């Protein structure tokens, strides 16, 4: 996977912790440990809400990647600003679903 470790909180409250939670769901860290830290720092409801959104994107990412859905017109310019940073221009989904 091309995505790097990220940079601090990205201007988001507890952003670094949330990023570590995402990574842990992909097996990049101990999920139980990170979940416990999210619960103690942000609360159980925030933990569940974060994992709710992550699960939703496991669905959406598969729908998009498996149908070649192109990026929406209103997202073309904002995406240009971050695609390089994320390594997203190297994704197969970039090649097969241009936008």
């Amino acid at each position, binding site marked *: 996977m091309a995505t790097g470790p990220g940079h601090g909180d990205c201007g988001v409250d507890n952003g670094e912790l949330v990023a570590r939670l995402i990574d842990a769901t992909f097996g990049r860290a101990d999920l139980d440990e990170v979940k416990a830290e999210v619960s103690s720092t942000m609360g159980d409801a925030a933990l569940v809400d974060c994992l709710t959104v992550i699960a939703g994107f496991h669905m959406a990412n598969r729908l998009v990647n498996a149908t070649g*859905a192109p990026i929406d017109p209103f997202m073309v310019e904002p995406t240009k600003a971050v695609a390089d940073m994320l390594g997203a221009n190297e994704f197969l989904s970039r090649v097969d679903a241009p936008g």
Partner: protein
Amino acid sequence: MVTQTSIYETELPIRAAVLEGHAALLEHWASPGTWWSASERLAIVNEVRTAWDADQLPPWVGPSTVDGLVADDHVLPAAVVDIIWRITNHTSTLTRDWYDSFVPDQVSAEQYVEVLSLVSMANMVDRFADSLSMDRLALPEPRAGEPSRYRPDGVEIARHWVPTAPLEDTHWSPDMPMEAPNVRRTLNLVPAEAAILWILIDAHYIAGGILSELDSGRNWSIERPHFELLATRTSALNECFY
């Protein structure tokens, strides 16, 4: 009848919309579909679990080509099993050529879209349950009945590999419908699947897919920037450019 209070054994504060959506999904899975029977639909969901829990194959190796991995009397065609495994375990490797290797020679576009719907939604609820250390949803018994074979008017290959129809989104303002995002169009070749998709996107993200400041604070314990971080990083790790 599946009830939302019975689907997960947990004290965790899961939002009502999520429980309602997952309960509706169970009913949906166990009902005859548009192109697949209820038994076949539940077999597709089960195959997602088999694929996820199996030792990983390289993306280019379909499980139907490995001796002993897929039962000879499997209820699903071998091509469908291969599609399920690839979408489940190697979503970052899906290409137009891969799609064309199955559609339309081995499955119709309509059959493919319904399979994709079931696979994507099963991955969503299973990843949700797994990450919260809950048992995965118990599958109901299949209901009798034949697939409806309903084919909507006005579909065409436009932006996606699969045929889609123009679609307006009135979530944001019923008086000012806007063009729906491409992710919400992915399944509208099979309208019954598109309908449950909208329910699930609304439950797991934001109604209408619009990043409204108001909506992010209304029912959730996290704020709009958290949604964007969660969406961006999860999509990046799944290598989804969209």
